[in-house]
Every structure is written in C-alpha cells, then in structure tokens.
C-alpha cells in the first residue's frame, strides 16, 4: 500500500480539523479529495507530507511512518502545496535545479531531470525568465515540475489546476492521468468535474470526516438511486389531484410541488434509479385533463451527491 492512513485525527488547538479518518491508496490510483473549503483536505495532505504531525492515528507512505521515518517519507514524495511555493527571483531552471539538489538527485543527473520536466510541463519558452514575472498558469506548471522532478512514488497535489486556463487544465489533467498509471496520486479539489475527468477514486470529506469513498460511478450508483423529472403543467388543473395521481405510479417515490409560476405549476418527481418516467407521467397528466408544457429527466450527478453529503 503506498499510502495508509489509520484513524487520523488532527486538532488545531481546540478546532477539530480531521476527525478519525482512515483510507488507503495503492499504486495506479488517482485519488480525488473532494470537499468544501475547510473540510480538512489540505490538513490531511500536510500530514501525509510530514509538514504537520497527526494529533493521533498513524500515516504510512510506502511503509514508512510519517513521524518516525520522516526523511524516508519525504524521499518518496512529490508535493505541490496549495500556496504554490516559488522563489520569484529565480528562473524556472534555477528553481528546478535547486529543488533537484534538495531532493538528493545526483549532480550528473540534475540537468537531464530538469530538461525532462521542462519538456513535460511546457516550460521551454519561459526557462530563463524570473518566476515572479510569469503568468499564474506558468507558475502552476513550475510548481508541478517541482513536485515531479524526483520521479516520486507518491504525488500529493493540493488543487493542482487552480489558476489555469481551460486548455492548460486539460493538459495538466492528461499529465496527471499518465503519471497516475505508475504512481499513487492524491489530488484535492473543489471542482467536481475535475474528479470525474481525472480520478479513478473519490473520497468526499466534510467537517473532517470521510462521508463517501468509491469510484465516481459507484458513488453515483450508491447515491439515493433516484431519477428526477421536472414537470411543468398549465395552471388550469387541480394541482393536489394531479400530484396525487402521479404518486399512484408504482416507480414514483415522491412528488414535490416546487412553485406556482402564475400561468403554470412546477413539480419535481423522484423515481427509482434508471427508470424513465416521462411516458407514464404524461399519460397521468392527460387523464387529469391537464396540459404538459415541459418535462425533463435527469440522473443524479456527482454534484447532487456532493451537495447532499456536505450540506
């Protein structure tokens, strides 16, 4: 197991940031940490990377305990903190060489490694410019190059795509996916589409607790397993009779009157997962002599799950 977190708890003074969480991650996994701001994502990452010690519980990276074998853990890690740590008076070349030396890469290999990272992260055009003058996207790429230069077994990325434009985001996601095949990648984000696009496993954290753990597909299946139809009918009918009639349909779980638009009524109808209720509903509406104005069906998305779990 590349990362093994067991009953991890972290207090900042009296504030409980991480509350007794356990999970494991193995090689080939790209693990997405999802959660609202202040959920404990960054804290967990700071503990895995040995920057902060756990209050209780243990964390192991490649079998090394983060507290007792801190230096061994750090050799296995690549880490991009949330606040991208750059020296603005250095050029990307100087910065990467400095980081490579700290990582203990032998001096005759530093140049090769650095050039590799410059190529992979697309930094060639800015290689001799001061980092302070670079755009946010380039800065972020320098940060990623820094995290990967020692070819780490475990890559911890705290919001790796923040500040990038859509093209760069896709590039970086592809890069992470490629790396993820032979490494363990943990990335945190609050952008949901990022998780579906990049990760093959998701952990949702809220208020320091793990509230969901699984592949994006599993989470979708596990979520209440409902399909949703929004129905708009003309207001020339009895809305209570109509909702009662729809409720009689066998696969309908719940009918919710949303609002009165003046000339129309809006309903949310929840049904069992995977069923398409539109046909039966439209029959029922006609029986009630009402007029369908619009009807849409929707499967619950990761976003719904996220909102439900982190409310």
């Amino acid at each position, binding site marked *: 197991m590349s990362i093994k977190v067991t009953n991890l708890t972290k207090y900042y003074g009296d504030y409980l940031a991480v509350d007794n969480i356990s999970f494991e991650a193995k090689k080939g996994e790209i693990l997405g940490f999802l959660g609202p701001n202040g959920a404990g994502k960054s804290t967990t990452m*700071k503990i895995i*990377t*040995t*920057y*902060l*010690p756990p209050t209780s519980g243990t964390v192991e990276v490649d079998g090394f305990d983060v507290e007792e074998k801190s*230096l061994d853990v*750090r*050799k296995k*890690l690549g*880490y991009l*903190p949330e*606040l*991208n*740590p*750059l*020296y*603005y*008076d250095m050029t990307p070349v100087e910065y990467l060489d*400095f*980081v490579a*030396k*700290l*990582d*203990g890469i032998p001096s005759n290999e530093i140049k090769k490694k650095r050039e590799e990272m410059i190529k992979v992260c697309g930094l060639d055009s800015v290689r001799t410019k001061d980092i302070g003058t670079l755009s946010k996207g380039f800065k972020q790429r320098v940060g990623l190059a*820094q995290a990967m230069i020692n070819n780490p077994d475990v890559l911890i990325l705290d919001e790796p795509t923040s500040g990038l434009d859509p093209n760069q985001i896709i590039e970086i996601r592809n890069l992470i996916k490629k790396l993820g095949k032979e490494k363990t990648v943990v990335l945190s984000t609050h952008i949901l589409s990022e998780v579906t696009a990049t990760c093959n496993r998701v952990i949702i954290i809220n208020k320091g607790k793990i509230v969901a753990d699984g592949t994006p597909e599993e989470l979708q299946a596990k979520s209440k397993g409902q399909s949703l139809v929004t129905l708009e009918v003309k207001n020339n009918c009895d809305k209570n009779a109509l909702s009662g009639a729809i409720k009689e349909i066998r696969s309908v779980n719940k009918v919710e009157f949303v609002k009165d638009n003046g000339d129309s009524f809006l309903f949310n109808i929840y049904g069992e997962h995977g069923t398409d209720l539109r046909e039966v509903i439209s029959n029922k509406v006609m029986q009630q002599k009402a007029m369908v104005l619009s009807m849409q069906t929707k499967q619950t998305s990761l976003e719904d799950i996220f909102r439900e779990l982190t409310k």
Partner: protein
Amino acid sequence: MNTTNIKTIFSKELKSYFNSPVAYIVMIVFMVISGFLFTMSFFQINVASMREFFGSFFIQLVLFVVFIPAITMRSFSEEKKQGTLELLLTKPITDIELILGKYLSALTLIVITLAPTIFYFIVIKMIGPIPFWPFLTSLLGYILMSAFFIGIGIFVSSITENQIIAFIVAVLICLFFFLLGKLLVVFPPSMVSVFEYLTTDYHLSNISRGVIDSRVLVYYFSMIFFTLFLTKVSLESRKW
C-alpha cells in the same frame, strides 16, 4: 548531518543576497563609513594603530545593530510568507541543515563585508610598525560578535512572516546586548561582574587587546548555539 544539503541552502541564500540590493548596500555603506572613519582616525591621531578604528562606537553600532538585522530579516520570514518554508520542510533535509545553511550564508556575507579592513591594515603597515596579532584578534572579535547577532536575527526572523517586524525586533535585541556594556555604571557594583559577562562589549574589548580568552570563546559559542537552538524550536512550533 548532510553537508550537501547545507551547501545547497547556503549557495541559494548567498545567491539571493547578491540578487537583491541588500548585499551591495551593506557592503558599500560599510566601506564608505569605515573608510571615512579609518582616514579620520589615521590622520588625527597620527599613530600606526587600528585600535581607534575597531573601537569605534559608530562602526560597531551600524554593523551590529543595523546591518546584521537588515541581512537576516528575510531569512525565514520571507520563506514563511511565500509558503516556500513548506517546500523546504517537506524535502529530505533536516531543520538543522536548513538553519545552518542560512546561518552560514549570512555569516559569509558579513565576512566579505569585513574583508576590506585587511586593506586598511596593509596601508598602515606600509607607513609604520603595526602588530599583526591584535589586528587579527580584533577582526576575529568582530566576526564572533557578528556570528552571535546573526543568530539573534535569524531566530527573530523565524518567529514572524513580516520582514519589518523581524528587523525591528532584531534591532532592539541586538541594541540591548550592545548597549548593556555601556550602561554598566547604573548597576550596583556587586552585580556588575555578572552583567559584565553577559555584555558583548566586555568580550569584544577583551579580544581586541590580542588575548583570546577561553571565556570569550565560551561566551560567544554558547550564545550562537543558544540562538540556533531557539530557531530550531521556533521551526518546530508548527507541530505544537
């Protein structure tokens, strides 16, 4: 302890001193002030000696109380502010290696700044007889004193992410140690000997006479050790 890591930090720090105006300002201003005072004392007193020069209150005040805090104020505070401390502390390098790399680079900058005094010595030597040994011990005294105050500066820099606060607090602490010797007269005679040992003045004047007393070395080395130890504690305080 891994000397390669210390060297990596050391050269990065030294480069950043010379990439910013700090190193040049300190070196040039010191050269101007010391050159001025040197020629003044040289022609006024008409004696082939550097005692007046090294004993100058003004030079000491500027060098120890202003320049050293100015050099060390960025040391850790800037790393904290930019988040780069998190980078350094999650790389395979120990806290002590990091502190020593930074400490030694600041000390090296001061040694480079003090180097022109050798030129003054050579000038006097050409004119009249001047003993080499007191010059060397005076210079050593300056370096030891700087080594202590750099320790103070680096420690203070590690407790705040604001450079200006780091500078001001370091100036105040350095000023305290520096002026303590001048204020000894206000203490009751029974306490003077205790305070005297704490003052940098006492040791600096001791060593300037050409005597390297083991008490002087013990004083400076224990003070340096203590400030570096405090810095390490301060870095570890993130874990509390």
